[in-house]
């Protein structure tokens, strides 16, 4: 009888030990999850910002906006952004009016986290000022 009880206690202790180890694993998981999410957003932000800066090299982006060449902007963005990222670009003038009459996008932005980048553009020919808003998300 005494031996039987001892065996039950051993099983309980083992269960307790397993619970302690698994609870530690469960506790540490949200920490990783939040880190992964913020790191993902930072990566997206850096990718988007670098793409815009590359596009704006020598003031090309401003010239393309002044020419209302949305197709060219879209195709250049598609080349600069890696596969697996969907985007939507909106161009505003100095009075915050939307300039692009056709959407400049690729894929859909129904992801868990969407990064929005605001970028100031100068057209070196007409010296007009624009705001470009680029929204990015990982493709699901």
């Amino acid at each position, binding site marked *: 009888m005494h031996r039987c009880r001892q065996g039950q206690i051993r099983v309980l202790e083992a269960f307790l030990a397993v619970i302690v180890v698994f609870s530690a694993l469960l506790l540490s998981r949200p920490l990783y999850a939040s880190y992964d999410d913020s790191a993902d957003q930072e990566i997206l932000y850096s990718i988007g910002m670098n793409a815009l800066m590359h596009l*704006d090299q020598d003031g090309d982006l401003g010239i393309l906006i002044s020419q209302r060449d949305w197709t060219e902007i879209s195709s250049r963005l598609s080349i600069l952004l890696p596969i697996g990222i969907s985007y939507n670009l909106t161009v505003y003038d100095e009075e915050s009016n939307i300039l692009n009459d056709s959407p400049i996008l690729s894929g859909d932005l129904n992801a868990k986290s969407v990064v929005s980048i605001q970028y100031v553009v100068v057209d070196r020919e007409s010296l007009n000022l624009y705001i470009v808003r680029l929204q990015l998300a990982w493709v699901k």
Partner: protein
Amino acid sequence: MKDKRRSGQIIIFAALTIAFIILSTTIYVYQISQNLHPEDQPPHLRGFIRNVKIASRILMVGSLANISNGGDNGSLRYNLQRLRTFIEYNYQRGRCIFSFRLCEVSPYSSGLWIFWGTDGFGVSSAKADFSLNLADEREEIITEYSINIATHILISATSKRVRLPGFYIIRVMIRVFNEGSPALCKNLTIYYTDYYGNWREAGSLKFYALKDYGNGTYSARFLIFEPSGVLNRKVMVLCFDRREIRVIATTTCERI
């Protein structure tokens, strides 16, 4: 018997130790990853600062191109004031103060130095200092930077009498620079003075050749007919760099 009782406690103790190691390792890795670049600013701030630097640079290039092509000298200040208002208005993550100071140190005046000399040197340049102050409830970042846009050319010319009477061969050497480094130009036009001192375009001559060395150096060669000969013949080069900035230089031909 006593040892057997203790073995259960050891299991619990070992489990607690493992849990402690897991938790402390996780926290350590998380903290390390957070402090990977402690000297860096948040990415959105870094991105915004880089964006403002690029925008102010492009605006200065555009303004200088406009001024060197006959635009008003005051347009540089006016355009930078527009950019300042635009940037301050569109920054939405806190307070933003963007200021600039046009260079007034000689040879610059109101941020501009446009000198199209007669000794083979011509320059079109704009220079300004900028300050960007970004602040939110947690921190304040002040970034200061200077932008100097300069296109200059150096030219030299020689005039040589050829065997045919009244004919001269003119050779012009042109070097183009952007911010002190050799640069390509978009368009080059060469003029020379005739016997009466009138400027004539060399490109319209029958025997005219322009060679592009691909490293910002150009040479032109043309044959002119001047029966009475010209003393101190002048050559002028009008250059547009790839940013549309105009610069002119004039020189006197060296007779060889």
